[in-house]
């Protein structure tokens, strides 16, 4: 059963990363561990931040032809 849920979680992470969204839980854990003094973005602010990185500013395409 654990294996199944593990697979499901990976599937979800893959689908999210395919559209440029890294894992939110990992991000929260990272912020809490490494930067406990800094605020943690909520889910929609996190997604907005990812969108900004994926679609603008760097002048490098995020996806191919």
């Amino acid at each position, binding site marked *: 059963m654990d294996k199944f849920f593990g697979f499901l979680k*990976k599937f979800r992470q893959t689908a999210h990363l*395919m559209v440029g969204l890294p*894992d939110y839980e990992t*991000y929260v854990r*990272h912020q809490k561990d490494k930067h406990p003094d800094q605020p943690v973005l909520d889910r*929609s602010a996190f997604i907005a931040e990812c969108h900004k990185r994926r679609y603008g500013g760097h002048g490098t395409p*995020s996806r*191919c032809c």
Partner: protein
Amino acid sequence: MDGIKKHFGWALVGLIGAIALGVVALERGESINALWIVVAALCTYLIAYRYYSLFIANRVLRLDAGRITPAVRLNDGLDYVPTNRHVLFGHHFAAIAGAGPLVGPVLAAQMGYLPGTLWLLAGVVLAGAVQDFIVLFLSTRRDGKSLGEMVRSEMGAAAGVIVQAGILLIMIILLAVLALVVVKALAHSPWGVFTVAATIPIALFMGLYSRYVRPGRVGEVSLIGVALLMLSIMVGGMVAESPTWGPIFTLKGETLALALIGYGFVASVIPVWLLLAPRDYLSTFLKIGTIVGLAIGILFVMPELKMPAVTKFIDGTGPVFSGSAFPFLFITIACGAVSGFHSLIASGTTPKMLETEPQARFIGYGAMLTESFVAIMALIAASVLEPGIYFAMNSPAALIGTTPEQAAAVVSSWGFAVTPTDLELLAKQVGESTILSRTGGAPTLAVGMAHILSTAIGGEALMAFWYHFAILFEALFILTTIDAGTRVCRFMIQDFIGTAVPRFKQTQSWTANIIATTIAVAGWGYILYQGVRDPLGGINSLWPLFGISNQMLAAIALILCTVVLFKMKRERYAWVTIVPAVWILICTLTAGWQKLFHSDPAIGFLSHAKKFSTALDAGQILAPAHSMAQMQQIITNAYVNATLCAAFMIVVLAMLTFGLRRIYTAYVVPHPTAIESSPVAVEGARHG
């Protein structure tokens, strides 16, 4: 003894692959089953991955599991995140697999399935996957630097600027050609236009939903979106049949082109959450779903290939694209064998997420092999059609006329028997008024997919649904690329103008935004519009230009790889990148030269211009022009295309010169000179 045993299983894989490849290459006269190609391809990939990519990993690059990756060292939870390799493979594959590998092989099928298959297999193993893998490695060693930045630091500032300019040009031609594929698929197709138009309100709804109703629920909103898309395909069928709504959605190519240009402008200036992001979700998931569905379909249905192994058009007289197999086959199939564009992706987000260095092999080499398989499936989908149907769909109206009777007569005279009834029946089955001259690859792929999928699910009753599903999937994907690509162009233009006028670099500035977007849209819009009005259907002359630009970028990336290998003092193994770089340079420069100077007006831009200006001087008007002004326009277009082609050649020759100089300097210095970020060894346990 163990050493030999270890290779026994692989020898068996190799043997099976060799037999399958033999059947594919040598079978004549009788149609073969698509499974032979599938088996040949899979065995080739397995062997190449097991041996060649391992050789590159261990000997050439010496991937170091003990060296800490940027994802671990710079972990910030957002950009730099150590990511499970299977998850990252999915990300990387979704980023490199686009519409390109689905279109190129369909066009290349005019020479038969064999030339395309061989180039797809040899190209990916020796060139495409090598490029993706090594660029990913180089970028990982440099904290995830982009291709442009790496060229600047390893080859000098001037080379960096030239590459940036080259990338901008490639983006513009890419957007124009992809937009042209959409126009060709949707012209005079009310069903297609309706479903594709419906994606705009659906995406807007999704954007609003995920911002205000259920923030952050990507999976949920995507499922709703896909369900609405399926619904729109069904409604589209009714719209097409309706006497009131049908004509409203029946649009000419020119109208569609202008609509796309307007759309591209608006879409790329509004906030990303509203339209672009939800569209990106839809098109990405739909693409992956379609690829998986097509693979299962082919394995399940095991279709016979109707296209001959090699057709007489191998000599360059074919109607789909002009020019002989060398060099044009290698230009036409760009993505799938080797795609320069991937060097931008492999130096984008992926290198910032690698857990360990050796995983670059699985992600870089492995994902490109998978992409090649997608291209193989597209080639199969085109080859399961009767050749007569294939040529009727892919030849421009200037050659085969506009009625089923004319088209059937012309195509049959080429030796590919087809009757007017066949053509009418198929059009009816897929719910279209006509399937003639639906160039650009997407409709052919759609018919092929409909053919395969309807055999598996739904039979003839669902043929029209599957056809429009495939059209929708291609168009949706391309529209997302146009939106995202126009933004990328805009930032590049802002960056360029910004070096002279620093104020222009501010991405928040509306004036700068509007001006740069206008330049970007005008650039690809102009090429798109002239392509729509082209006598040979546009794809015929513009797809090679796209192929040339994409392969030139691959040549540049491979030159960079070679330079760095010399700088690392691994010149002994530099042939790994030199061989594909030289081959691609030969193909692209020959193709570029022929596109410029070939005496056949169908191939050479300049002789095309000459033909029309001679006629203009004599006061004649040649089709498709209806007036002197249009004649002048065609001549201008030919010169614009010639200039673009020459620009690509100059960029690549300049890069070659820079590369050779850097290689020489690196060679005579006795110590490594590559500029990597300083190595940090992995501590006992990885943190993150």
